[in-house]
Structures are given as structure tokens and as C-alpha cells.
């Protein structure tokens, strides 16, 4: 199936869970990254339960300070 991650369309295995995608994408400090699925924010504890579907759109929103912080 195909999903869109950070604006890029990519093929992933069927039944991929959101948590697995986050690992696969090598998201740094994932517990401090806001994740949206189809324009809705997903609670951190729900990431493991959510099974992605064909056509889903996932965005990662990172904390950004002023150059002094990651």
C-alpha cells in the first residue's frame, strides 16, 4: 500500500502500525514529536494501536527552539 509521509508518497507493507512507521522513518526523540494522521493529532499512547491504511497521510511536527535546542 501507499501512504504519504512528510509530503512524500511511499510504499509500505500492509498492516503497518504507526509506531512501526515512526521507527522505520528513524524519527529522533519520537516521544517528543507530535504526529498527525490525516490531519488529526495522535496521542503518543495510541501510536502502537493504529494500523495504517492505503492513502493515509502522516506528518511529524518537531520541537524547534532558537538554535539552542533540538
Amino acid at each position: 500500500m501507499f501512504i504519504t509521509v512528510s509530503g512524500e508518497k511511499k510504499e509500505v507493507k500492509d498492516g503497518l502500525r504507526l509506531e512501526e512507521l515512526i521507527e522505520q522513518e528513524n524519527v529522533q526523540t519520537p516521544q517528543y514529536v507530535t504526529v498527525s494522521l490525516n490531519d488529526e493529532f495522535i496521542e503518543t499512547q495510541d501510536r502502537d494501536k493504529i494500523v495504517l491504511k492505503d492513502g493515509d497521510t502522516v506528518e511529524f511536527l518537531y520541537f524547534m527552539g532558537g538554535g539552542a535546542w533540538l
Partner: protein
Amino acid sequence: MALNDEQIERYSRHILLKEIGAKGQKKLLNAKVLIIGAGGLGCPVGLYLAAAGVGTIGVADADTVDLSNLQRQIAHSTADIGKPKVQSLKESMEAINSDVTVNTYEKFIDSSNIRALIRDYDFIVDGTDNFATKFLINDACVMEKKPFSHAGILRFQGQLMTYIPGQGPCYRCVFKDMPPKDAIPTCRQAGVIGAMAGVIGSLQAMETVKFITGTGKLLVGELLTYDGINQSFRKIKLPPCDGKCAICGEHPSITELKDYEQPACELKL
């Protein structure tokens, strides 16, 4: 108040724009904007807003100019090292345009003074470098129903969004709460490309001018991200507040401001 001849010439490129015109220029001259942080972001914001003729501009920062600031904080020069940043920025702004009044606040912004400070201004620009102050600005602006521009920069990345009371999600809707102390690598490991401050600060100035003049579409409900490595901009849609936000939700759990604990930065950036 009519524009005088010098103002008509100075602001002619604004006046020519049908979206701004003389009417919009007068709005700018009557506007009051507060910039919190006179560093990487605050410098370009201050310079562009002064050049644009924003009549009253407040600048708040407790820091002094350091040699390592000069790589990106373009309103400060080598001769300003050791000088309060608010003073250095004010001098640069007034050198561009003596038409504007620059109020300086050489102090730390905290829960005891922020609400009274922002109350006097129409629009707030977050040019701070730490999450404690970013969350404080957000929470205070929600409480005082003040619009503000959030921005952050890191390495080759930048982001910004605009909060307008009642119109879209706030910073806390997106980022909930500060990351804990030891979760974050130290300043020494980070770094930022100097021009990133210029790109993102200029975009904050753009949002400010658009807000004051009522021009176009603001970044409400959207996070604009910029990737300098690939030279790409993206807008990420932000869902509206789900009503559960701790500050702008229906039953806010934050009812008064407090100072967040934030680890001190070991390396002065």
C-alpha cells in the same frame, strides 16, 4: 492623521501595493508590536518592522551581545559586544527609521510580568530560543487574547505558525508540553545556519505586517516548515483545537501562569 511628504516617499513601495496603500501604511504607523527576544529571529523582525514604519515596537531581552551571536543576529555588530541586545537592536532600528518609537525591556520575561507587558501591544512576536518562554508566551497570549507569531530554528530547519485568538490552534494544541530536561541534547550539539534566522524572522515580519494591514491569509491552523538543505517549504495542516487543550480548550487546566523549569544553556548561543 495624514502621511507627510517624507512618509509618502519613504513608504512609497508599500503605498503602491493595492493590498496596503496609504490606508494600510497608516495602520502600520498606528500599530504596536512586541518582539520577545532580540536575537536571531528578533533582529530581522525588528529591522523589517522598523523599516515598514510600525509605529511602536517593544523589544524585550535580558541578554548582552556576545561574539558568537554575530554569525546570525544581524542587527548587532562587533562594536556592540557587551551591550544589552535591546539597546543594540533599538539603535539599529532607529538608524533605519526614526519615525518609529522603540520601547526596550531589558529583563527576563516571566510569569509575573508577561501579561501586563503584552496587554499594551496588538501583536506579539516570539523570537525566543527556549521552550519555557515559548510556552509562557503562548499561554499568556491565550489568556490575554493576543495574536502572536511562533517561530523556531535549528540547524538547517525552521518553522513558524500564527495564533489568532478564537481562529485556530495554539502552540500548546500542537506541542502539549515542554520536553523534559534530559531528553534534549545540549546547545553544544545543535548549531544553526545564520541565514535561517533571516528567512524565518523575515517570514514573522511578513505575518506581522499582514496581520496589521489585514492582508491575505495568515499561518493560522498551519505550520510552515522550511528545509534549507533541500530548499523546500511545506505547510503542515494543523487540526483545530479539539477542546481539550490545557490552555485554549473548553475547560483549561492552566488557569494562572507559572514559570516553567528549564535547564540553563551551558554554551551561550
